[in-house]
């Protein structure tokens, strides 16, 4: 080996000369470019640093999330509850007793091998849509005893009476607002319809005014404004327009400065006391109160998603608004939109550490609170990977939210 070492020395001398020559050949201009490039890289790297975020302390605050296997790598699309259970909709409905731990598939009328495109509840009764393998509606079932007994509502024939006998159609969603069940369906021609369940006539009726039989774009969501100063009404958004009215006479909203935007409406929420919020794809939230629309910018050029007005703590209400699919997660802002919180920093709903390890980077399908419990909040997510969960619960207790915990 020592003999070999001499070879190495010799080679080194040759190499050193070669290196020195090549260094002399580097023009000064080229060196300046290299320094400039290095400076740019350093600036870019430093600018990505966040002095407000502690990596190791954040990790130390993380909570091991042990949720139900059912919610791993899936999407939760809707939730409901009655006196005894929570219900969540994936491709089937799963349920968990409010005082229990385990989630399980809910048999519908004795059947566990089904596909459900919709779930809704009014706090006492749950409604579940069942469809065939082509997503065509079979029927909507209701249960008022925690899923023990089911009643078929004969929805298919009622709806076919409107859209045409023999026409198959798909359910997009169910929603209960103000104790009324609404159903959005679309047919093979992509005409979209909204029906409500009329308890008096025990049938499904067109929710729109008689001049609107269907829409050419999907409906996003419907809420009840709960107004007491004026007759209460429902507010509905399609992907482009706002509608309002009561059952059977919902019509396009023509009020000044309303949030209509072609394919730009993403979410709608109500405070239950006359105030309506609508989120849009241009980063704005429109705010309706006392007969007037106003708006504020949450984040420019950022698509927003579903939103909710969180009324706890009552002294510091926040709007939670999902971010578009390119970034995902959600933001918080105070109820007037003057301060916006991002990336978990300053959130009231959860700590930054828990936000990072639970909701951030996942698409938020919606936020949901039981009608009778404003101290419980669920985040319904599209979990992108097999190992992550799609449903988290947050509980308000002793003046603070617990932070997201996997269900």
């Amino acid at each position: 080996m020592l003999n070999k070492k001499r070879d190495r020395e010799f080679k080194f001398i040759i190499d050193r000369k070669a290196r020195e020559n090549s260094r002399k050949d580097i023009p000064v201009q080229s060196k300046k470019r290299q320094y400039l490039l290095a400076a740019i890289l350093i600036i870019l790297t430093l600018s990505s640093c966040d002095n407000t975020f502690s990596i190791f302390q954040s990790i130390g605050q993380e909570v091991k999330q042990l949720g139900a296997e059912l919610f791993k790598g899936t999407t939760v699309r809707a939730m409901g509850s009655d006196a005894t259970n929570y219900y969540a909709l994936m491709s089937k409905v799963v349920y968990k007793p409010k005082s229990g731990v385990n989630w399980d598939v809910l048999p519908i009328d004795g059947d566990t091998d089904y596909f459900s495109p919709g779930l809704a509840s009014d706090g006492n009764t749950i409604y579940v849509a069942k469809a065939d393998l082509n997503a065509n509606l079979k029927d909507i079932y209701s249960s008022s005893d925690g899923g023990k007994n089911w009643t078929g509502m004969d929805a298919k024939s009622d709806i076919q009476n409107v859209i045409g006998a023999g026409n198959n159609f798909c359910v997009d969603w169910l929603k209960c607002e103000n104790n009324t069940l609404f159903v959005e369906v679309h047919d093979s021609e992509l005409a979209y319809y909204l029906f409500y369940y009329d308890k008096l006539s025990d049938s499904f009726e067109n929710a729109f005014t008689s001049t609107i039989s269907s829409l050419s774009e999907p409906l996003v969501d419907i809420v009840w404004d709960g107004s007491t100063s004026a007759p209460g009404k429902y507010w509905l958004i399609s992907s482009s327009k706002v509608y309002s009215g009561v059952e059977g006479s919902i019509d396009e909203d023509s009020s000044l400065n309303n949030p209509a935007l072609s394919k730009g409406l993403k979410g709608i929420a109500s405070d239950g006391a006359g105030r309506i919020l609508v989120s849009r794809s241009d980063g704005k939230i429109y705010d309706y109160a006392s007969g007037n629309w106003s708006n504020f910018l949450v984040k420019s050029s950022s698509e927003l998603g579903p939103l909710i007005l969180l009324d706890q703590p009552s002294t510091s209400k926040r709007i939670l608004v999902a971010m578009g699919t390119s970034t995902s997660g959600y933001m918080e802002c105070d109820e007037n939109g003057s301060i916006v919180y991002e990336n978990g920093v300053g959130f009231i709903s959860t700590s930054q550490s828990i936000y990072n390890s639970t909701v951030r980077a996942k698409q938020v399908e919606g936020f949901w609170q039981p009608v009778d419990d404003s101290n419980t909040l669920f985040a319904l997510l599209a979990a992108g990977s097999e190992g992550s969960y799609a449903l988290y619960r947050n509980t308000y207790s002793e003046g603070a939210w617990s932070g997201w915990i996997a269900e």
Partner: protein
Amino acid sequence: MLKKQMLVTLMISALALGLSAQEKIEDPFEATRVKGDQSISIQIGGFLPLFVIDNAGTPISPSNMSIGSAFSVQYRYMLGKNFSIGGSGAGSFVTTVGGGTLFMAPIGITGAWIWGREPMEYEVSAELGMNIMRLYGNGLISPIAKFGGGISRFVDSSWSIGFKLNWWFVPEIHLGAFSNLTSYANFLEFSIGANYHF
């Protein structure tokens, strides 16, 4: 915690055994290298989070990090028969209890004291540099210091293979109003690798 302690004890024992096996060497500081010798090494191995302390010196418990992996590339230039300087770049991953992944990529300058007798070579080294960290899309740059040692064995005139232990000391410095977020993390890198001498 017990598993971590056992693992550290095993590694230190292995290092000590390797050193004691060379008791018969008459001149352990006999140079196997000369000034101007250079080497490039590539290491890969495991990465063990040890403990984290906060700004007040209180341990952040638990550290909530699991064992991960690390790799590094290092260049060395011998300034004498025993002392070398050089530079290194490394990368490491550890997963967190919440399902995140902490990525660290330090680059630094190294100094090492190297001794031994062919075919074995031993070293103790220190490294100072900067460390780019990334967690959940949040980035930070911190200083870093590494201290360690290793054993390697020449398999021919140009190549040696060996084992290294490196203690990573990672101070996460926050300034101004956020200085309370400062914390100090400690990791142990254990790796095997190959060195090319030229």
